[in-house]
Structure formats: structure tokens, C-alpha cells
């Protein structure tokens, strides 16, 4: 019993804290991270087949960014909104997991926009 009680922790359920043990699964849960719209994340694990953009380039909403092959399907990843490519974290041929930050974006300032036009 002494050994058993060693695992007891304070555990808050609403306003009251209970003495209780935690489960493996509870300890393994992933903490919530606020999504960053300036990161293009992989929605499925797969392989990078082609990258269409370069760092520093301003890309228009809807333009293709890269092809991510997953489950024998060529997924064309598009630009979610007009912005500048800050950093590309993947290379052609990379096998990547789900939820990986593939491309980082930053707001395109007006100069960039004019330059592009």
C-alpha cells in the first residue's frame, strides 16, 4: 500500500483537487499548441515530390507551393493567403511526418508586392 500511494498526485477536476494516480495515456497526451497561420504544416505524412517556390518570394493566394505524395496520391499544397516565403524546411525527396512545419511565411510588405507586379 505504501508503494501504491507514492504514485498519488493532486488532480484538479473543476474546483476540487483529488488525490489520485495518473494513467500512461494521460501522461502521454499532447499539450495544445496555438496554431500559427504563418506555418504551412503537413496534413498527412508523405514524401516531398516537388517544391515550386523559393525563400524570399511573394506568392499569391491559391498558387502552388509544393507536391506532397501520400498514400499514392499527389497532394498539391497551395498558398492559403498572399504572403512572403520566409523559410522552406523541406527538400525534394524528404519523407516527412504529419504536422511538420514545411514552409514558414511572413507578411508581404507593399514593396514586395510592387516588385512582384
Amino acid at each position, binding site marked *: 500500500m505504501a508503494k501504491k500511494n507514492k504514485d498519488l498526485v493532486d488532480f484538479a477536476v*473543476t*474546483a*476540487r483537487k*483529488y*488525490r489520485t494516480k*495518473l*494513467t500512461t495515456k494521460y501522461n502521454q497526451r499532447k499539450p495544445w499548441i496555438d496554431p500559427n497561420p504563418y506555418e504551412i504544416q503537413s496534413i498527412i505524412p*508523405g514524401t516531398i515530390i516537388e517544391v515550386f517556390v523559393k525563400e524570399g518570394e511573394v506568392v499569391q493566394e491559391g498558387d502552388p507551393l509544393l507536391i506532397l505524395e501520400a498514400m499514392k496520391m499527389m497532394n498539391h499544397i497551395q498558398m492559403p493567403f498572399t504572403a512572403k516565403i520566409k523559410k522552406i524546411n523541406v527538400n525534394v525527396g524528404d519523407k*516527412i*511526418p504529419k504536422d511538420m512545419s514545411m514552409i514558414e511565411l511572413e507578411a508581404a510588405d507593399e514593396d514586395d508586392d510592387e516588385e512582384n507586379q
Partner: protein
Amino acid sequence: MTLKKNIIALRQKKAQVKMGGGKKAIEKQAAMGKMTARARLLYLLDVNSFHEYDMFVEHEERNFGMDMKELAGDGVITGTGTINGAPVCVYAQDFTVMGGSLGLKHARKITKIMDHALKMKVPIIGINDSGGARIQEGIGALAGYGEIFYRNTMASGVIPQISVILGPCAGGAVYSPALTDFVFVVENISKMFITGPNVIETVLGEKISQEDLGGARVHAEITGNAHFYAQTEIQSLNQIKELIGMIPHSNQKKAEKKAPKKPTFNKNLENIIPSDPKQPYDVRDVIYALTDESKFIEVQELWAPNIVIGFGRMNGETIGFVANQPMYLAGVLDCDASDKAARFIRFCDAFNIPIVTLEDMPGYLPGVDQEHAGVIRHGAKMLYAYSEATVPKITVILRKAYGGGYIAMNSRHLGADFMFAWPGTEIAVMGPEGAANIIFRKEIMEAEDQDAMRQQKVEEYIEKFANPFVAAAKGYIDAVIEPSETRDLVLHALEVSQNKDDHRPQKKHGIPPF
């Protein structure tokens, strides 16, 4: 004389099939620490009770050199036998025969014995040990799996279906066990996954062992796919025998009634539960104090241990227990606990097993992960399962019942037949601390000593509302009882519920939030 000759020939033919994949393959199976398919069946069933059918079934594949291959029994042994005298249908995949791979004829042997079990209204037990689909047979293998799944579904709720995983069980093969009522796994031997480590490494570059991906412990503790976990095959097969002795063998029967016995667990019920509501205890001690000989077959012991489910006997009759477990996660309801309890309740309801609910419920587990994992949808399964069940439903509130959890744990409002509460239980919309903070917010804010005022208001709330008598005054609780009376009152409630006749509206089927 010819008959004699034929008999000798038959014996030889049988002996050959009984050698499965041959001596070498059997030695390999033993080297892996595994019993042969035949040895497993013979151990599981009563001595001399096993009778095999379809020994001489042959595959019909002609491509990829398969026409040259003879596969003993097409890699699966099927038959009937008894477990402690009770008839059952069984099949066991034979890993020594082409890796136990499933071709169409192999599958048809399984579906034939399943059909038999369903017609004869006896349990079916499947021993899985197979490398998966027999690739050479292509679509034939897929057809085979599909035909098994269809029968699993048809038999669901009619006869108990038991799967034991004694080897690999990958890809499509995993879905037959998943459709059955109870899945048994063994440490280091059982492996279940949809896509194996090789595929995961090829696609993702992630390296993981078979054991870490889909071993016995993973399914018993993390995924909840497995219901019974054992260290050895023998222990696992013994668990099956014990379970078969406890449950009814079809939905038209009740479980075999045994001679009534007293509990042997002699700890006083009044001393099991700490008076400090924040201190934990093992709710299984309460179950031991209620069941005959204090025996309890716990189902899914390692997964979502914050709720305890399982079978025990009371006065000889099989009862399903559902109990919050304060020892883990304070006994909260979460996605897994709701899922676990809901399916168990449906099993009990399908097979005429009365349900006794022991409640000590702090509420639902707060957290982004829970909300996003669908605690609303999973939690709703429990409301559905309790409401739908027409077997006798008895609840004993041991210490507290708050909020949505109060409703979910077989409350009067979901159709409980008998509601008992121990004195000192807190039945309220939420815990006294939380409630006082909201109701007396202004008084607490304006007080000079806020903590003292908060404490005073909490005590006021406990005094007025956090007790069983508010609910009892409304008839939501039938009786406030002393802990020592619990077993007798539950037994009485079960006795008067013997002929319970409860009807549901005519429908094809409901639409539970799967």
C-alpha cells in the same frame, strides 16, 4: 477387409493433416515460444471433447505455383467441443501452414463454423495466428475477410464472440477481432496493427518495433482493443474458460446460475471509503464486498482504469458491474472511460445480464485534448447505452455524483430501476467549492477575509445541498441506505427485477453516437 483398409487410410490421412506445416514448421513455432494451433484447442477444450470438421478442405488457387502446394486444412482448424461441459464452436489459425495466411477456403472454413455457432446458439472462439491475407489468392482473400466480418456482425448480440490473438494479426485480419465481444492478448506474442512497422518506416521513416506499435500491452492499455491481457498463452486460455463460465451462451439464455455464496472479502464497507472526499480508494474493494466469494472478472483492466467494468456473481447470478475508480484520474469520465462502459453496458443488455452501477463521480475530465478527442460524442455513448438497456439496472451512489456525470451513471432519469445512496453522499450540480464560488460570488468578493467567507459558503452549500436528501426528497433516490445494507438491498432489488418487462419503441435499430 476393404473397410479396414479404408479406415487405416483415413487414419493416415488424418495424421498427415494433424502435422500441419510439418515437423520443421512446428519446431519453429515452438522456438517462438508459441503453442501449435492444435495444442491450443486441446488445452482450451475439455479432454476428448474436440471434434474437427473440414480437415480435408483444399485451396483452389492455381497461380504463382500454388497448384503445387498442399496446405493442411488450408491453414485453419475448425470444430466443436465443450468448455466445462458447455458446447462451443472454435477455430484456430495454424501458423505452421503457410504462416496461417488466409485464403478463400481458409475463410470459408471459418464462416462455416461461425454459421454453425449462430444456428446452434453457442459461443464462438477464434484463435488468431496469421500472417494476413494469402497474397497469391488476391481478391479471394479479401472476399474471405469480408465474409467473416459480415458474420461477426450478424452474430453480434446473439452469441458471445471471443477472439484470442496468439501471433500476428495485421491488416484486414484485425477487424474480425475488433468486431467480436472480447479480445484476449498475450505479452510478446500478440501483435495487432493495420499497417506494420515496415510500412510505417517506408512511408514515414519512423522506426518502431512491432511490440511498441501493436503489442499486447499497447492494446490492453492504450488503444482499448484488447479486453484481457495475459503473460502466457496458458494463462490467456484459462481466462477464456473462466469467462465462458460466467456469461450466457446466447441472447436467449441467462448465464448459468451457481449455488449462492457469501463474499469472502471481510473488510467492512464503512471503512473502505475515506471520509475526506479528496482521498482515493480502490472501488474494486466495494465490488469484492458485494460478490459471491468476492470473485470479480475485470474486463479491460488496464485501459481507462478510471472506470471499472466486469462480471461477478451475486447469489449465484451473473451481474455486470460498472464503477467509477477514484484511484485513477479521480474516477472522472473521459472519452475512453465512456467508450469502455458504453460497450460493456450494451453487452450486458444484449445478453440479459443485470447491471449494478457503483457511483463516485467527480465529473468529466477537463482539457483541450479531451474536447478535441470528442468527449461529447464518446460521453453520449454512455447516456445512450444506459437509456437503451432494458435489463435490471441498479445504482448505488457511494460518495458523490456531480453534474453531467450524475446523469450519465445510470441515474433515475435514464431509467434506473433502483437508486440507492449511502448517507453522506454529495449529489449536486457540481462540487461544493465550485458551486459556492458561483452562487456566493458577490458575498465572497465583498468580504474582508475572502478565504474565510468562501470556506463558510462552501460549508453552507454542503449542509444544504451536497447530500442525498435533496435528491431523495424529489424521489430521484429511492432509499438512503447504510453501507452494510448494500449487498442485501441490491440482492433484493435483483430478486424483484427477475421478471422486468420494459419495452422500447419499435425500430430497425437506434443510431448511437458510434
